[in-house]
């Protein structure tokens, strides 16, 4: 074996594990936050407390191993507090949840900074550490009064910065002093540790010592305040008790490095007569085999234990059945499958006219290829699908903080969290949804007193739901707050010089809140300067081929429904022909199509044309005009209309023929060419020709305004 061993003292590059650690720490922080938010203080469950502890413990271990000392220090303090909670030495109080949540946030920022290559100023955690230490020592700190002050001007900051310990000492400890918990034991006679107390009395300047509770009856615990190092203390104590019997942990002040001084001396050890211990006789394979062949009665008892911890069991199961893959690998796979779909479509088209009798086998093969390609495409697309719970999970925390800040009471209900959505869309929908949820909490839900006065329950409810509807996903944000006021919106719109009328249908009035600069705050709460740019929300959603619908009833609440395509990479399209060109319309926006007579089309001012479809007039867009398609005079003119809808408005597109419906692989035109008006992308057809995909929402917008 020896020849296989690497040279001792080799340099190990741990940086290759950083990414795994960052992801793991992120998951641990998410999990910690989740449990903290669900934690019922009166009735905290051991499993939950152990779960949070394990998250902090795991992050600390990794951070210390990979050299992220700031994260290790903060999580070390969190762990100490959590350890006391899980041992029931302390009772959980709301301040603990607050400080742990804030510490989780701070850990995230610290980790993000390391991940970004130490760029930017590291957030200070001194205040958090102080609050955690006070809570861990059984005191409730005056947290709100001593929240971190607003940051000093940037120029002054570096000079003003002092080491965190000195700037935020624990209340009982003077500068440079640390508050320690010293455990001595196990002892035959507990009073033998009294000599340690005498040391503090006899040596001036060593510090103070007092008895502390110990959960272990064979050990003594002391609370010590001192500026001496762990090593000095251990040396002093060594006159009276064995070094191994002393364990020092830091309660406040100092840092983790100092805390581990004591253990630095003995980083590992062996039990003298334990099996395999270097002290014991080296076991031989033969001895092991012999032992294995003569099972003792105990062996029969040693059946694998059932997993008692259901949560832990599920986690382990998930871990062993999933793999982490870089997103770009998945994207490349999707791209290749896209190409394959196109190739398959070309083969299908080219083989259409083959004689089935002669090419029977070839055609059977092509039919198989068709089916397999479709299945493959579906499976590959599903890789990118992630559940909405990923997005929803951020809202409980956000609403909790928002409600606390505003003094409101808000319950969050989430439905359809398992609904899956393309990863790319999930990332892009998160911000607009956050806007909407915040808006509901901020402007929709009333203050508790106001709600009670209106006969509503004191707690407002915000409901987030996701569901699949056809080829779309619909995400709803609903609240039971004060709702929108039609009169106020119309008044505000007139003040801004917008063209509105009292007869406008509700749906059109609600859409006004998405107009640029139209703050809902002005309308709903009259709190100026706090409006959320809903126009940005709408624009972001429209950029994803999505739409927003609003429904509201004054005094009863508001519902915003965001409708999105399931994926951006493939869409159902309807191909239409104009002249020699083929265009693709997103099937989701097509309402109907019909043959039109010239009499049905009316020309109004400036040559605009309108068509009346079932008592509704809508603008007519001649495709040959907007795309300037050359025509021979002998050719027939377009006489088929396709009605498309976007944002609740409809237009009729005039085309030559309807060619069919198919799934198309969307290729970005902007990144390959440039942005083209009225076009959202391009695709390659079965015959190898390129067809443009029409941006129906922008066409509708242009035509209606």
């Amino acid at each position, binding site marked *: *074996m020896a*020849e*296989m*061993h*690497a040279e*001792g003292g*080799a340099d*190990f590059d*741990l940086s*290759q*594990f950083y990414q*795994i650690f960052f992801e*793991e720490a992120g998951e641990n922080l998410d999990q910690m936050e989740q449990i903290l938010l669900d934690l019922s203080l009166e009735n905290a469950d051991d499993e939950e407390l152990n*779960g949070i502890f*394990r998250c902090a*413990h*795991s992050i*600390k*271990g*990794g951070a*210390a*191993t*990979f050299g992220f000392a700031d994260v*290790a220090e903060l999580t070390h303090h969190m762990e100490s507090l959590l350890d006391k909670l899980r041992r029931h030495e302390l009772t959980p109080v709301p301040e603990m949840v607050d400080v742990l949540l804030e510490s989780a946030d701070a850990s995230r920022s610290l980790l993000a900074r390391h991940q970004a290559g130490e760029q930017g100023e590291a957030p200070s955690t001194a205040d958090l550490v102080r609050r955690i230490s006070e809570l861990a020592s059984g005191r409730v700190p005056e947290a709100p009064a001593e929240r971190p002050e607003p940051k000093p001007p940037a120029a002054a900051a570096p000079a003003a910065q002092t080491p965190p310990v000195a700037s935020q000492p624990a209340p009982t400890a003077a500068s440079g002093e640390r508050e320690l918990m010293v*455990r001595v*034991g*196990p002892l035959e006679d507990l009073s033998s540790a009294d000599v340690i107390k005498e040391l503090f009395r006899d040596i001036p300047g060593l510090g103070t010592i007092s008895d502390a509770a110990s959960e*272990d009856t064979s*050990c003594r615990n002391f609370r010590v305040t001192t500026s001496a190092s762990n090593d000095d203390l251990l040396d002093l104590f060594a006159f009276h008790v064995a070094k*191994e019997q002393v*364990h020092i942990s830091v309660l406040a002040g100092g840092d983790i490095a100092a805390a581990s001084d004591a*253990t630095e001396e*003995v*980083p*590992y*050890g*062996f*039990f003298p007569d*334990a*099996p*395999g*211990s*270097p002290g014991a006789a080296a*076991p031989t394979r033969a001895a*092991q085999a012999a*032992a294995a062949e*003569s099972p*003792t009665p105990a*062996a029969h*008892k*040693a059946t*694998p*234990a059932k*997993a008692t*911890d259901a*949560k*832990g*069991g599920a986690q*382990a199961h998930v871990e*062993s059945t999933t793999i982490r893959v870089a997103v770009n690998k998945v994207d490349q796979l999707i791209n290749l499958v896209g190409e394959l779909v196109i190739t398959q479509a070309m083969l299908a088209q080219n083989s259409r006219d083959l004689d089935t009798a002669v090419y029977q086998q070839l055609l059977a093969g092509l039919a198989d290829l068709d089916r397999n390609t479709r299945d493959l495409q579906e499976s590959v697309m599903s890789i990118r699908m992630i559940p909405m719970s990923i997005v929803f999970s951020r809202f409980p925390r956000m609403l909790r903080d928002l409600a606390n800040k505003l003094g409101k009471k808000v319950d969050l209900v989430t439905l359809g969290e398992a609904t899956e959505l393309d990863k790319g869309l999930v990332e892009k929908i998160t911000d607009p949804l956050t806007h909407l949820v915040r808006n509901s909490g901020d402007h929709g839900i009333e203050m508790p007193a106001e709600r009670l006065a209106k006969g509503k329950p004191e707690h407002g409810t915000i409901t987030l739901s996701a569901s699949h509807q056809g080829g779309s996903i619909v995400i709803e944000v609903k609240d039971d707050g004060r709702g929108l006021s039609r009169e106020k919106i119309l008044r505000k719109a007139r003040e801004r010089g917008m063209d509105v009328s009292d007869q406008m249908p509700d749906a059109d009035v609600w859409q006004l809140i998405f107009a640029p600069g139209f703050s809902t705050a002005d309308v709903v709460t009259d709190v100026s300067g706090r409006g959320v740019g809903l126009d940005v929300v709408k624009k972001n959603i429209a950029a994803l081929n999505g739409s927003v619908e609003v429904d509201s009833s004054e005094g009863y609440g508001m519902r915003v429904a965001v409708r999105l395509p399931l994926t951006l990479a493939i869409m159902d399209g309807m191909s239409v022909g104009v002249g020699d060109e083929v265009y693709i319309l997103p099937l989701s926006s097509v309402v109907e199509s019909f043959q039109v007579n010239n009499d049905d089309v009316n020309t109004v001012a400036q040559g605009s044309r309108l068509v009346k479809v079932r008592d509704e007039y809508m603008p007519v867009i001649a495709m040959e005009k907007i795309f300037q398609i050359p025509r021979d005079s002998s050719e027939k003119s377009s006489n088929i209309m396709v009605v498309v809808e976007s944002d609740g408005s409809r237009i009729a597109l005039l085309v030559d023929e309807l060619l069919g419906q198919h799934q198309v692989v969307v290729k970005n035109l902007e990144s390959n060419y440039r942005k083209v008006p009225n076009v959202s992308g391009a695709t390659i057809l079965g015959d190898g020709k390129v067809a443009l995909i029409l941006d129906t929402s922008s066409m509708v917008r242009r035509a209606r305004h």
Partner: protein
Amino acid sequence: MQSILAVDDSPSMRKMVAFTLTGAGYHVVEAVDGQDAYEKAQTHDIDLVLADQNMPRLDGIGLTRKLREHPKFKTVPILILTTESSDQMKQAGRAAGATGWLVKPFDPNRLIEVIRKVMP
């Protein structure tokens, strides 16, 4: 080639340990917690067990206790990785039948050094 069962619920720690040991010429079997390790120990030939102490389902000391009940593991060295080298932990480890302990965080070179002491 000697086989080491590396048990840790933290993927980054587990990968780091596995990488270090593989580089030092050992065959590594990874397990995500004590229960997983116990199951893998039944089906693999293991020469040494390196177990984290704090894990869901079954912790390092619990794993040690269960492995020692099994004749196949009566004499296999078992090292516990722990962040606290408290006496309480050491006594529990000793009572369970562990061979020794190694304090986390540790340097990869230290890990190899300790393993070579147990498994020359």
